[in-house]
């Protein structure tokens, strides 16, 4: 694994997502995301690298709510990349859309250009009470004021696991748990899968192959923008609408 030919990707089975926010808090914990205070929510500046959107359908009594987790899609043709004047965001050779904090000058062009709204700006210096800083993850930079941040597929885990495997002379399996981003390990219903889309034996590659076919459930979020994301969604199944509405999208 982790050859030069790696293409990290994620498969999200919306049919399993229950909206429990487990992934959201796991991400906060792993990635040193500042505490989202009441004020930040009111200013619409709360930071959630992965978020769970809720959509209403219908009205009482025939009402439905749907959940869909949304994170950086790590697009192969990412709209955020060409607008950065300082190359702080770019696509690397592992298929990831990368944000380099020390290059970022805070123009926020990238956030403006992202159709998925998964980029977040640090309007203030992050602050924690002294004792809570004990929890901060030493593998992840604490972002300072004035820069952009977003989902990294928990690259610190990929780096650490591959490094330690190389040190101990071990082969790293593509579906190993240590490699997974925090959200994937936290998900109680196995909604999220992570792995190398270029490795035909990985779970994500198999799912992608199977579900992106004509009769599969796979789709990309907002395909009309042609962003070619590395995150694949699997449709929610709703049997009550199955017969009445054969077409979709």
């Amino acid at each position, binding site marked *: 694994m982790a050859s030069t030919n790696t293409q990290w990707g994620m498969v999200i089975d*919306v049919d399993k997502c229950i*909206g429990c926010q487990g992934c959201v808090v796991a991400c906060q914990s792993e990635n040193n995301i500042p505490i989202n205070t009441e004020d930040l929510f009111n200013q619409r500046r*709360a930071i959630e690298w992965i978020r769970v959107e809720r959509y209403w359908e219908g009205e009482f009594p025939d*009402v439905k709510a749907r959940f869909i987790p949304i994170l950086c899609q790590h697009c192969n043709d990412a709209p955020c990349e060409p607008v950065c004047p300082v190359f702080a965001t770019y696509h690397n050779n592992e298929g990831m859309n990368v944000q380099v904090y020390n290059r970022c000058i805070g123009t926020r062009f990238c956030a403006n250009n992202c159709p998925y709204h*998964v980029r977040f700006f640090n309007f203030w210096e992050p602050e924690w009470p002294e*004792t809570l800083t004990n*929890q901060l*993850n030493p593998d992840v930079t604490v972002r300072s004021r004035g820069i952009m941040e977003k989902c990294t597929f928990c690259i610190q885990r990929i780096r650490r696991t591959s490094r330690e495997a190389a040190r101990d002379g071990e082969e790293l399996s593509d579906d190993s748990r240590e490699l997974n981003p925090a959200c994937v390990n936290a998900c109680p219903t196995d909604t999220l899968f992570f792995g190398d889309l270029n490795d035909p034996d990985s779970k994500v590659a198999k799912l992608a192959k199977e579900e992106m076919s004509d009769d599969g459930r796979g789709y990309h979020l907002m395909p009309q923008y042609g962003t070619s994301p590395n995150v694949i969604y699997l449709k929610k199944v709703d049997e*009550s609408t199955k017969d009445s509405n054969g077409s979709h999208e």
Partner: protein
Amino acid sequence: MSLTRRQFLTLMGGSATAVAAAACGVPERELLVQSPIEMPEDMVTGLDNWYATIDRQNRAPLGVVVRVMEGRAKKVEGNVDYPVNRGKHNAVAEAGLQGLYHPDRIGSPLIRTGQRGEGKWEQLSWTDAVSRVAERLGELSGEETVFITNPVSAHTGLVVNRFAEALGAKHMSYEPLERTVLKASMKQVFDQEAMPDFDIENAAYILSFGADFLNTWESPVRYARGYGHFRQGENRSRGKLVHFDSRFSMTGANADEWVYVKPGYEGEVALAIANVMISAGLPDSPALHRITGQGSNSLESFTPQAVGSRAGVDPEKIVRIARDFLEHPPGLAIGGGSAGAHSNGLFNLNAIYALNYLSGSVDQLGGITFNPSPPISDLPTAPDATSFSDFRDLAGRMSGGQVKALLVRNADPFYGLPENTGITRASFNVPLIVSFSNRFDDTTMLADIILPENHYLEDWGTDIPDPGPGYQTIGFQQPVVRPFFESRGPHLGTKNFGDVLMTLAQVLEKDLGLDADNFKGLMENDARRLRELDRGSVRAANDKLFWNTILQRGGWWDTNASGDIHDPRSGQYSFPTAAQAPSTGGSGEFHLMPFETTGLTDGRGADLPWLQATPDPITTATWQTWVEINLKKAEEMGINEGDVVKVTSEQGSIEALAYPHPGISPDVVAIPVGQGHKGGGRYSKDRGANVLSILSPVTESETGALAWAATRVNLRRTGEWIRLPKFENTAPDLAEDGHRRIIPLTSG
């Protein structure tokens, strides 16, 4: 002060330079490298270790592994081995870390110096504190001492029970939303003491009534894990979930069909479903005979038509769902939450659980499986929660001066009990209140002496899961980090709760009849007993190896040890012939449904900022108390989102922010439990409102439990408006996404 333009510019320039200098400089501590005096062998700077332990932030403890670097806990993840959660965890377990490093934790024994509740404290040494408590307890008779804990099991339970016995004190277990009714129903329907397990993973059809089992009810992580397989598991077809509830909960949102039932009529709906099933013809069995009263269909008064009109459910729906349920075995019926929180709660739950006999899923794959008693007979499983009626009596005894000492551990009755019990007022007639809490919850605020216990990540312990996974399991909890306040020396800091009780007993010269003189010793002795069983997940050549392995794996379990359970067929329940109508407190316009949120659950998570900031799945609201009200009804009443509304019951009123949404019945308003603490530290103090305080004192008719979903309220706009902190719209709607509507499956 007047300021010229020039002065202003100078000041600006000066402060900008200062900011720039401060920003460019390297923080002083980064210019130092500390070399410690001694370094533990397994601690390598920059390398992480994952230690297995038990999470206790959740009401149903999970097996977790905690990432530790340089002696600090960094991350919690599920323990893949542990039978209850099998590697899964949730937001609550994750946030336990913030409890460990909470800025307002109590770090040493404290004694009150000001008036009670004034919040003035003085530090004192453990020896001093324990001897003061012992001296006071020594003067009292057993009846004058009351010991309130959370429902405790395994070794902590053992020590608590022995301590209460030795003192002759009354022991009460407290939970705000108690399980008394549920446990009584398990006893009557299945003849079980312990909660059974639900095999959601293998069920084909689930009928659930009132229980938000994917979110907060009983063992949500275990159920959610099963749910993943239930939906898209390999080698099975997609399961179907139908949820009957008076509120549109998270489980309701995930159900294939959510059916609104008038509050308190869940049991009748279940009986109507039973009626349809029996009419359709069921294979004869002894259980069926017993349940239906000798095989005759005695449910004439529960026809879908009659029940439908009473419960507000379309009769055709009842018939269709009942047939579907019958045609898709294994079918599982689950009930709880608000369905059991009415004056007829037991009637409801009994009827619901009896459906499992009709679908033939009792003690079957994909149905209900039962839990055996623990492998070591001394160890108690979690006791029944003491009912609300008992606590009301306690409040009476307290105000009458019959209670002289109150010991409270990990329970917050002064927060959770409705105002009308008068327990907070009554507490001023109790001369001694001792709290073992390490945070200033509402009860601890009114204590006289605080003997703070360790945080669970610093502590020893064991857990017998309840509900268990269907076989014998004991979780072992070990300290993953040194106690945070260890540096304050042996006389201050926090201690293990069991050890403190054992020391107290020693000072009081009471024999607890335990085979060790400290808590860890008790655990080690029983580990030895476990090894002698020579079965299960851990076997070892010697005791030391066994002990180490058991801590490494997070516990001991034996997947084959599912025997030794009461025969469920000896339950006493049979279908009733007459309905039992729910009664409500007050006569307001709306029925009030209190509910637990993902983050705060019953209020225990309110002091942790991650949980406060966790959006509620349905409303995405955070940090506040809100009122869910039907969108159209709100329009009629002129209520908009963020309007401060006064919710008034016959017992009092609270103010909260309106959140109108389309998923709730126009007759119902729903308010989350968990805010409105008077204490708990900076993140929870004086935040939001406590809906539990205005509940009517309606009790479940047979068990005396609090019928917390049986209050009616009125709503009135106060004219104020506060922005509701919610996550919704933080990112603009993905309006152009063609998938935002329900996406039908084309392949069928």
